[in-house]
């Protein structure tokens, strides 16, 4: 198992390096650079000013040298410096990462939990009204653009009903501590997490349902029936456990991409996470910061994938620790 993890980590590092190199050049393909952005904002932009900024950012050096400097930094776990925000990239990301993790993991937990629950219900009562209702709802959530749900949710729950705060991570300036603070953050979390989770919930619902129906037909379920087991036990112990295997795989893929995919949600709900940080960094050509976010979110994907594989191996004894 350790060997398995070690192997995956080494492979992950290689993938990360490739991502760094690719993105390093990719990002620099975009027209404009941070100097241009800052010149625009300063309301003054003679060539000296722009040249000064470029020198300051190290953009005047040849690209391979810049890459080398960056990679060297990464090797010593230094993600570089954001000249734009005048702070180390690692610090900027560290400030935002917890919020993103909180958001995505909550969304993930909700979507997985409810998705499986609804999927099981639909499969258990296949062909009944409940099944149809769940299936139709899941399909609609699956087909609705996320940003649209977010807009409607704000209208419904913040503006009209005034139940939930519409933006941010906490009530600024309220100075809550302890439980109050947790509740406050929780209230802020509800809408973004629900919005982000809906699509995935729909996916898991559909997948769980389909997978359950498929497993239900397998021979070992017949064996279980032939033993005289109760339906509940058969469903739980035999059908569900086997049906969840593909869901686990898919969920692992999602968990990782959620981190980078929360851009829209974070934008609409003003959630101070790295999705927004990435978008801002992109718009401002904050190369180091953008790369940093990419490295971190890709690392997240890799970590989640690894965790999924470990979970999978835990659930499915057939898989051994082979590559």
């Amino acid at each position, binding site marked *: 198992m350790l*060997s*398995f993890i*070690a*192997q995956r980590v080494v492979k992950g590092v290689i993938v990360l390096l490739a991502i760094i190199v690719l993105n390093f050049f990719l990002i620099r393909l975009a027209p404009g650079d941070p100097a241009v952005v800052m010149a625009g904002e300063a309301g003054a932009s003679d060539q000296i000013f722009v040249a000064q900024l470029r020198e300051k950012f190290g953009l005047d050096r040849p690209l391979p040298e810049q890459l080398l400097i960056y990679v060297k930094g990464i090797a010593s776990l230094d993600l570089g410096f954001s000249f734009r925000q005048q702070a180390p990239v690692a610090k900027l990301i560290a400030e935002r990462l917890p919020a993103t993790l909180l958001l995505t993991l909550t969304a993930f937990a909700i979507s997985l939990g409810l998705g499986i629950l609804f999927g099981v219900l639909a499969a258990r009562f296949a062909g009944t009204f409940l099944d149809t209702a769940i299936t139709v709802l899941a399909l609609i959530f699956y087909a609705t653009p996320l940003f649209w749900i977010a807009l409607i949710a704000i209208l419904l729950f913040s503006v009209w009903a005034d139940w939930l705060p519409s933006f941010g991570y906490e009530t600024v300036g309220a100075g809550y501590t302890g439980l109050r603070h947790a509740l406050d953050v929780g209230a802020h979390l509800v809408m973004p997490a629900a919005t982000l989770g809906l699509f995935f919930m729909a996916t898991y619902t559909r997948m769980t349902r389909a997978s359950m129906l498929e497993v239900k037909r*397998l*021979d*070992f379920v*017949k*064996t*279980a*029936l*032939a*033993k*005289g*087991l*109760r339906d509940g*036990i058969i469903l739980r*112990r*035999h059908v569900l*456990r*086997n049906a969840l295997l593909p869901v686990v795989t898919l969920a692992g893929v999602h968990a990782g991409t959620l981190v980078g995919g929360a851009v829209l949600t974070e934008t609409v709900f003003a959630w101070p996470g790295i999705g927004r940080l990435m978008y801002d960094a992109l718009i401002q050509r904050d190369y180091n910061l953008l790369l940093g976010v990419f490295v971190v979110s890709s690392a997240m994907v890799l970590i989640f994938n690894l965790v999924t594989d470990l979970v999978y191996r835990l*659930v*499915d*004894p*057939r898989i*051994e*620790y*082979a*590559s």
Partner: protein
Amino acid sequence: MGDPVVSIKNLRIALPRGAERTHAVDGVSFDLTAGKIVCVVGESGSGKSMCAHALLGLLPDTVKVESGEIAFEGRDLLSVDQDGWRDLRGRRIAMVFQEPMTALNPLMRIGEQLMEVFEAHDLLSPKERRAKALALVREVGLPDPERIIRAYPHQLSGGQRQRAMIAMALALEPAVLVADEPTTALDVTTQAQILKLIRNLQASHNMAVMFITHDFGVVADIADQVVVLRHGKVVEEGTAEAVLGRPQHDYTKALLAAVPSFDPPPRRSREDAPRALEVVGLDKTYVTPTGWFRPKRETRAAHAVNFAIHQGETLGLVGESGSGKSSVARLVMRLIEADRGTVRIGDVDLTALDGRALRTQRHRIQMIFQDPFASLNPRRKVGRIIADGMVARGTPLEAALKRAQELLGLVGLDAGAIGRYPHEFSGGQRQRIGIARALALDPEIIVADEAVSALDVSVQAQVLRLLEDLKARLGLSMLFITHDLRVAAQICDRIAVMQKGEIVELKPTAALFADPEHAYTRELLAAVPGRKQEVA
């Protein structure tokens, strides 16, 4: 004979609309008696499995019992509700399925699945359940019970899994055991053991057993009573001796006649003919990487395999699954690459060729595959399937299709078949198409890999006859791979016995059957079902 435990009367089970026929089972009646094994025999689609499932209330939702009665201990099983079934299943009526791999939950330990039977009926404490499970595992003859109950299904061999299934079925000492082709997926030696086990357990527990099979050899070994099913109807019923020894119905007679005899017919030796195929020192080892810090897992598929086939000769390659016989076929065909060794066709060293050069030589050795369903591309018309190879060799399509029609005639099919798709044909017909494809390239050698194993016994006999006939007419040589010694006895001039990638014995067929030298050969021969009371 005592009172029947189960009495099936006039059972009619309707199939959903659109199926091949209206009823899966139509007016079937027979009894199961304590201490007796009733074999229900029939070819695929005869409705035998439906009967078995009806006995446990496990019929699929799409089929309906129309009429009839299944009486068990005075109750009509057809009117039992869900709770009633739950109580009966496992406790009074138990079942063993065909595929022990898929019939066990892959995510649960054997022990857990065993103990579940007690749990289902709220019997015993968890601790007692474990003790009972251990006892059961021991009773069905599994080694190292402590290890077995902690093992997952995939960690056991096929035979071991089937034993575990049987242990599960026996756990609550049911009155009736339904065994649905329980040995079909197993090797002959394993099959022999499992049959013996069922026989013994049935006797010691005084169970009524309904044993479903398509194999008359098995019937001969195990049955007290025989029920022969055809298209959902009982065509003949009686004691084993009566049905096997003095079959009344034509169908039964035909079936029995189709079972290949275990006595090899006399054959002319062809050892003085020139060698068509020569295999020298073939080695093939599969390596599965397992990670960085552990040894690689190696499976030896072929080791120092040597043989030659003379012109006009059929060499049989027999062995159990995993013995490497199919690997050898594929090595010879250059479908997989050997680690070492040469394959020579006439004077061409096939193993030395590559790419285009190899492709131009391939027509000399052709193959007939096992699975008639998987061996034809479902999306190509039969004509193209046969013609493709000729076209690849440069024959114009027109001419190739014309030849395909001739070939279809040769294998006993209508020439109009070239315009149809494979799914429009039965298994036996497809196998004929496969043969036509192989013949299309005018090969010198045919490799037949389990070419008749998937066919019903009556069809099997026809295809074997066709092969023999074509071989003689076209002067072909053949490498015939099979696990079925009866088939091998009928068609092979010489037989090579493989075990764990090695040929342990190679002899003319009659000599091998009469005087097996190697212990493994003897074991194989002894395990062939129905050998003791050779059927008519």
